[in-house]
C-alpha cells in the first residue's frame, strides 16, 4: 500500500520560504541575508515568516550595500557557512557584479577546486506589470554565460521547493531566479498553474533535468519560468487546430538538460524556443545552436524559431511592453508559422 504524501496547495513564494525554513532547521549553517528579508519577509515573499521562526541572527536585513553583503556571502561560504543572499531584482546586480562574476564564480576554479562556495543568490526576474526597463529584465542568460554559476529558473511551486533545497545543499554558487508573475503574490496577477500541490516533507528536484510539461508530437517548445505557462496555454489553443505541441520546462540552465531537448526535437522535428530574456546572444540562440550541432542525426521539418525580447530595453507603456515580451498570441502565431514552413 502506498503511503499517502501530505500535500497542500502553495504559491511559489510560500514554497520557496518553506524550503529555506526546512533547510535552516536541518542545518544550522544556513542563514539568509538581504534587503527587506526580515520583517517584510522579502519584497516577493520568498522569506515570509522566517524572521519570526529563526530570529534576526539568521534572517539578516542588510544595508543597501550589495557589494558588501554578496561579497560577505562568498567570505562566509569559504569558512563553511551556507548563506542565502537575496537581491530583490536581477536588474540591481550591476552594482555588485564584480563580487559575482569575478569572485563567487571564479574562486573555486582559480583555487584548483580547493575553495567551496555554497552560496545561493536569489532574485526576482521578469516583466508584465509595467515596471519598465530597470525592474523587468530576466537576465538569466547573462549569468548562464559566466562559467562557475549554476542557474535555476523554476516555473512552479513544486519545482521551486525542490530546486531551492537542492540549491542550498549544493556546494557551489547557485543563482535562483523567480519570476514575479508566478510567485502567487496577492498584489500582482499571476499564472495559476504556478501554484501547485506541494508535499509538506523535504525533497529535492535535481539540477539538469528538464520536465515535459505537456507531451506533443508536432512541435517542441523549449522554455522555462513564466513562459512555461504561456506556452501551455498556446499549446492548448493550437490543439484545437489539430497541432500537437510538446512543452519542455528546462528548470535549470546550468546544468542544461541537453539530452531532453534533443530527444524532444528528434521526435517532433520542429523547435520553437520561448524566452523572456533578450533575444540576442542568449538562451534561445544557445538552444538553437545545440540542435544545429546535432543536425547530422536529427532532421528538422521546419526552421528553428525563437521568441524573446527583440533587443530593446523593456518599455513602460502597457501596449509597448506587451509587444516586446512574448505573449500567448505570439506563441500561437509562431507555432502556426512553424507548422506551415518547411526546410
Amino acid at each position, binding site marked *: 500500500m502506498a503511503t499517502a504524501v501530505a500535500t497542500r496547495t502553495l504559491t511559489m513564494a510560500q514554497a520557496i520560504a518553506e524550503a529555506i525554513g526546512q533547510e535552516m532547521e536541518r542545518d544550522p549553517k544556513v542563514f539568509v541575508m538581504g534587503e527587506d528579508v526580515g520583517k517584510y519577509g522579502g519584497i516577493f515573499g520568498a522569506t515570509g515568516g522566517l524572521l519570526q521562526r529563526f530570529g534576526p541572527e539568521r534572517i539578516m536585513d542588510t544595508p543597501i550595500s550589495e557589494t558588501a553583503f554578496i561579497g560577505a556571502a562568498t567570505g562566509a561560504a569559504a569558512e563553511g557557512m551556507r548563506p542565502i543572499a537575496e537581491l530583490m531584482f536581477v536588474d540591481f546586480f550591476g552594482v555588485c557584479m564584480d563580487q559575482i562574476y569575478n569572485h563567487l564564480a571564479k574562486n573555486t576554479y*582559480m583555487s584548483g577546486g580547493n575553495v567551496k562556495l555554497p552560496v545561493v543568490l536569489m532574485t526576482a526576474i521578469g516583466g508584465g506589470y509595467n515596471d519598465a526597463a530597470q525592474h523587468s529584465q530576466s537576465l538569466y542568460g547573462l549569468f548562464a554565460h559566466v562559467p562557475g554559476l549554476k542557474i535555476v529558473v523554476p516555473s512552479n511551486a513544486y519545482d521551486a521547493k525542490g530546486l531551492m533545497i537542492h540549491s542550498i545543499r549544493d556546494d557551489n554558487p547557485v543563482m535562483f531566479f523567480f519570476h514575479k508573475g508566478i510567485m502567487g503574490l496577492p498584489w500582482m496577477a499571476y499564472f495559476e498553474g504556478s501554484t501547485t500541490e506541494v508535499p509538506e516533507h523535504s525533497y529535492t528536484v535535481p539540477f539538469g533535468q528538464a520536465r515535459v510539461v505537456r507531451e506533443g508530437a508536432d512541435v517542441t517548445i523549449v522554455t522555462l519560468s513564466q513562459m512555461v505557462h504561456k506556452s501551455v496555454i498556446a499549446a492548448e489553443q493550437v490543439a484545437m487546430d489539430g497541432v500537437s505541441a510538446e512543452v519542455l520546462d528546462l528548470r535549470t540552465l546550468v546544468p542544461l538538460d541537453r539530452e531532453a531537448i534533443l530527444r524532444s526535437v528528434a521526435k517532433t522535428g520542429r523547435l520553437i524556443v520561448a524566452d523572456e530574456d533578450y533575444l540576442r546572444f542568449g538562451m534561445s540562440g544557445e538552444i538553437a545552436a545545440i540542435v544545429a550541432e546535432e543536425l547530422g542525426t536529427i532532421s528538422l521539418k521546419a526552421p528553428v524559431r525563437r521568441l524573446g525580447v527583440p533587443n530593446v530595453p523593456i518599455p513602460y507603456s502597457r501596449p509597448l511592453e506587451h509587444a516586446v515580451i512574448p505573449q500567448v498570441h505570439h506563441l500561437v502565431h509562431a507555432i502556426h508559422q512553424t507548422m506551415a514552413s518547411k526546410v
Partner: protein
Amino acid sequence: MNPTTNQLLWMYETMLVIREFEETMVNVYLEGKLPPNIQKGLAFDIGSGPVPGEMHLAAGQEPVAVGVCAHLKKEDTVTGTHRPHHFAIAKGVPLDRMAAEIFGKVTGLGRGKGGHMHLFDPEHKFSCSGIIGAGMPPACGSALAGKKLGTDWVTATFFGEGAANQGSFHESLNLAALWKLPVVFICEDNKWAISVEKSVSTAIPSNADRAAAYGVPGVRVEHNDALEVFAAAGDAVARARRGEGPTLIEVKTDRYLGHFQGDAEVYRPKDEVAELRKHDPIPALEGHLRALGLLNDQADAEIRSRAHRRVTDAYDFARATAYPEPEEALYHVFAA
C-alpha cells in the same frame, strides 16, 4: 603591546624571506622576456618566459604584512590584494606551492589556474584578488562566519590607498561596524595607485580619518616600520577578538619596484626610490634586534641562510615540477 622575542625574530626572518622572494622574482620574471629571444621589434614580451603575465612585487612593503600577521593565528583569515606575496608569506602559505602557482605548475596552490594575483590557501586561510578593493566584502563574510560559529577568529583585510576610494571600502566598513564584525582593515599607503598619486586621487590626507564616518577607531602609522605596525595592529586585533568590532589602520609604506615589473615608472621622480631605500625597514629591525641583544653576527647569518634556503628551495620546486595537462583547464569550474 611589546612584541615577544619570538615575534621579533619571526618578523625579521619573514621580512627577509619576503624581500628575497620578491627580489629573486625580479630576475626570474625577466627570463625569456628580452631580445633577442622574443618577437623582433619588441623590447619586452609579457607573455614569455617561465613566469608570464603581470607581476606585482611588494619589496619595501614587508612591515605591513609582518606587523599584522604576527598577531594572527592559523584560524584567522587574511584577504590580500593584487600584490599579494608578502601577505601570503606572512600568513604561512607554503612557499613552494605558492611559487609553483606563480610558475603555472600543477603543484601550485590552484593547480596553475590562479596565478600570482589569485592565490588561495584554505588551510592557512589566505586568499587574494586582482580586483581593487574586492577583498573587503569577503573579509566581512569570513568574520561574520567566525562569529556565527562561536569562535574568536579575526579577519585581516589588506588593500591599497587607491582602494579606499572604492565603494567596497565604504560598504564594508559600514557593514563591519554595524554588525561589530571582527575585521581589521589595513590600508597600505604606498602613495601610488599605479601612476596616480594619493594627493591626486584622495580628498583627505589620511584614510584613517575615514573611520570616524563609521564610528570605529582609525589609526595612521606614519613610518614604514614593523614595530609601529605591530603596535597598531596589536590593539586592533585584540579589540576584534574581544568582539568589539573593526578598526581601520592606514600604514605609510614604500613600493621599491614598479607597479608591475616592466613598468618604466615615468610618473615617479628618478631619485624617489633611492631616497626611500635609505629607510629600509629590514636593517632598521635588524638594528633594533641587535640593540636589544637578541641578534649577533652568528645568529643573523643563520637566519639569513635559512631565509635564503627557503626561497631557493621554493623556486627550485616551482621550476622542477610539471605543468598541468591541457585537460586540467576543464576541471574545477564547480567543486566536486
